[in-house]
């Protein structure tokens, strides 16, 4: 068992990485994998922006364009953002609650190593006759069923991703519930741990539903069932209901851990406790609860009864309340603090502003009568990219800068980090802000070519896209450079940051908190506040 061999890492690639049951190594695997997928999905986005650079088709056929939009979304959602957060959870949750490792280390290994197979399966369709899935990541029937053999690959890949996420989520819950140091109560836990606990419950609740939905696609395609085929007595809109019953919580699965990350970083650099810790926890839980009862706001144009539309509109608008609480709390945390602006703080501040902008367009789209205009246009493309790129992905980048000293034992170059920040922040806005205008002016989403009136803003957006893509290649350079060497990081890399992870040396030894016993609550961010 692990704790016989305190600080000795297993030797050899196979033993160290393939067979690992160590939460830190598995966390690293997740993060590296997520980054590789981020670059892959990003490359597809570059193809999309290249084709949209000017009107007319110059580079790819429409069908390939659709394959790109579909694969870009699937890879970014299931391959980049979700695994990155699971990686952060693996690395940080045990260290934040004083646990020696995740509760179920062997299952942990399994849930990671499923992922490369899932994405190999999905990616292989690109090289097949008929190509990759091209029906959108939403996989609406009947369109998705027109894909040739890629339907089977798509469905099995989604199954594998689902199994991986469910096992990851089970592990997170089992760890948080059973492995806390004896004096760490639920309301002493850092907010990152809280948001992940809630996220994990969301995952367990909705990933099986997605698995069920895609299985029905599979049987419709190959075994003659008619779950979603109107001609056979089925209902294609029912798929949309099931998909979004998964899909709406899914978007919070991607954003709640970001809230957690930002709630760790802002207090550190404002040198002030997080404002309203308890209301943050309640707001997270409230958002999670609401996420289950608002799904049909993705479907205002399918022709629901008036009562249904009104209900989903009101319920959706309510989400603004707990989300607002979070944003106000972050601002109140900064208020009268003593702020410094290291790279993680910069990315967190940009997160608060730009995520809020994404939230604003979200409130606008909640209004069903206007959503009949916004729906399926570039306005919504702008909206969800604002909450996912300068939202979730900025939070992941902030987390990487924040904890990189703990992981690698080295400080990154602050100068390069700041260049990366400004480069990313400016380009991401050039990339996505004009898309609001395109959508309002009437450009539908998921089209490879457009009317000439949309030319200027598309070109602007593409230029922003290329610049943003390049900035993330620069990020690889910064991270690799930091891992290889640099100024030695202190145990508490930020001087007086709160959190148990800062009580262990940097880089964190292979095994931490092996000894069972109470931890010093004064060292925790919220240990003594309540």
């Amino acid at each position, binding site marked *: 068992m692990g704790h016989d061999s305190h600080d000795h890492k297993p030797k050899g690639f196979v033993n160290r990485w393939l067979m690992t049951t160590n939460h830190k190594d598995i966390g690293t695997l997740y993060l590296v994998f997520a980054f590789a997928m981020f670059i892959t999905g990003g490359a597809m986005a570059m193809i999309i922006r290249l084709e949209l650079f000017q*009107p*007319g*088709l110059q580079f790819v056929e*429409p*069908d390939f364009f*659709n394959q790109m939009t579909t694969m870009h979304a699937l890879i970014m959602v299931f391959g980049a953002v979700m695994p990155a957060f699971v990686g952060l959870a693996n690395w940080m949750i045990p260290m934040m609650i004083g646990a020696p490792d995740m509760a179920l280390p062997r299952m942990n290994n399994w849930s990671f190593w499923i992922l490369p197979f899932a994405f190999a399966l999905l990616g292989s369709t690109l090289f097949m*006759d*008929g190509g990759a899935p091209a029906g*959108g990541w939403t996989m*609406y029937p009947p*369109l998705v069923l*027109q894909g040739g053999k890629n339907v089977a690959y798509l469905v099995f890949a989604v199954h594998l991703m689902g199994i991986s996420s469910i096992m990851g989520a089970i592990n997170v819950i089992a760890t948080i519930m059973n492995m806390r140091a004896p004096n760490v109560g639920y309301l002493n836990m850092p907010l990152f741990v809280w948001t992940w606990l809630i996220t994990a419950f969301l995952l367990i609740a909705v990933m099986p539903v997605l698995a069920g939905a895609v299985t029905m696609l599979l049987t419709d395609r190959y075994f003659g069932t008619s779950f979603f085929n*109107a001609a056979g007595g089925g*209902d*294609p*809109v029912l798929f949309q209901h099931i998909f979004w019953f998964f899909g709406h919580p899914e978007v919070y699965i991607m954003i709640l851990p970001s809230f957690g990350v930002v709630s760790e970083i802002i207090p550190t650099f404002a*040198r*002030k406790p997080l*404002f*309203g810790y*308890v209301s943050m926890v309640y707001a997270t839980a409230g958002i999670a609860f609401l996420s289950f009862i608002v799904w049909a706001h993705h479907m205002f*144009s*399918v*022709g629901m*009864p*008036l009562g249904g539309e*009104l209900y989903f*509109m*009101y319920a959706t608008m309510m989400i*603004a*309340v707990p989300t*607002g*609480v979070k944003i*106000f709390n972050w601002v*109140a945390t*900064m208020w*009268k603090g003593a*702020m*410094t602006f290291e790279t993680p703080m910069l990315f967190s*501040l940009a997160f608060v502003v730009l995520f*809020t902008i994404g939230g*604003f367009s979200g*409130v*606008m789209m909640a*209004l*069903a*009568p*206007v959503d*009949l*205009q916004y729906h*399926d246009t570039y306005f919504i493309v702008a909206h969800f990219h604002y909450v996912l790129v300068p939202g979730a992905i900025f939070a992941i980048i902030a987390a990487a800068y924040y904890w990189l000293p703990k992981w690698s034992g080295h400080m990154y170059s602050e100068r390069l980090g700041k260049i990366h920040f400004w480069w990313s922040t400016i380009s991401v806005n050039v990339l996505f802000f004009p898309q609001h205008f395109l959508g*309002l*002016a009437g450009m*539908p989403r*998921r089209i*490879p*070519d457009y*009317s*000439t009136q949309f030319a*200027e803003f598309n070109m602007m957006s593409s230029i922003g896209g290329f610049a943003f893509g390049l900035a993330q290649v620069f990020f690889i350079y910064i991270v690799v450079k930091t891992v290889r060497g640099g100024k030695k990081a202190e145990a508490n890399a930020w001087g007086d940051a709160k959190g148990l992870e800062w009580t262990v040396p940097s880089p964190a030894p292979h095994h931490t908190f092996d000894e069972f016993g109470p931890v010093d609550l004064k060292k925790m961010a919220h240990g003594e506040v309540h």
Partner: protein
Amino acid sequence: MKKAQIKLVTMLTALMLTTVSSAEYGINLRKGVTDYSQTAYDMHMLAFWVCVVIGVLVFGAMLYSIIAHRKSKGVKPEQFSHSTTAEIVWTIIPIIILAVMAWPATKALIKMENPTENGKPMKMDMTIKVTGYQWKWRYDYLEEGFGFLSTLSKDSNLARQINSGVKPETVDNYLLDVDKPLVLPVDTNIRFLLTADDVIHSWWVPDFGWKRDAIPGFINEAWTNIKEPGIYRGQCAELCGKDHGFMPVVVEVLSKEDYADWLSQQKGEQAEEAAMVEKTWTKEELMARGEEVYMQQCVTCHQADGTGIPPTFPALAGSAVVNGAAADQVQLVLNGKPGTAMAAFGSLLSENDIAAAITYTRNSFGNTAGGMVQPVDVKNLK
């Protein structure tokens, strides 16, 4: 008073927008030409300004804090960590703001879904059935008993081929033009019934203020009443396969008199077309008409040279069906192939069009079947 506020806000924005945007490309939602589109626009502007005000307050507070509360200024961080009053205030105030927005939104939605006139359900003057196909629209004038297909115009279709050499800027209304637009009268309550034949589409004219999905096997309802004659352009809004970007919606709105003229002219043409089914066509006539039909209706999938895009869209050049018995090919075209983009053209095109297109394919692309299919043959197989 609320209305006046909205008007003021709208006017201010309009002023702002006209200064920053040229007429060439819009950056804001269109006001459109229906009562509903105006309502949607007002709703949009209200929500927009609410967001602007909240944004200014929140980001302003943040900016102030970033400037004033920084370590480099030597400030000592305070250590407060909650304030019940503040937290209650910023929970209650958003709820109030949301309620204020929900009220007009509810009224607008009722206007769309349950339109009433003087307290009674609104009376609809005419009904258009819209059917989505991969990748064209069919419009049926239910009361008049006729209808037609509406596909991307040939100019646009030519220019949009990869490396076509045609600059999109040189094509009028690139990608937003069709061979035959939907023609509607002004100031008329028009009911739309929307459905689809293959996959889900979504019918959208921004100037009317709404889009609605066209779903195979289901019939959706929507309505409009257009205030100004003109040509209004939109696009399919729901991903529907390879040519989703190339199935525009074009609506030509005429005055009531012009519409009546147009209607009688259409009926005359329909009668003429029906009479032509019975006559025996020459091969030249069939080939000429066939090429025209093929290039409009068949070309996106089967391609101009008949090579198709295998495996999804089979080649016609050298195809066993096209070179086999004529009756089998007619049956296939009439009934389509379920689960694929091949629609049942029996209900979409006239016998004349079908016979001509089939004759054209059997005598082109190096196919050796030869011979002619007469419209009357098609009629007999229907």
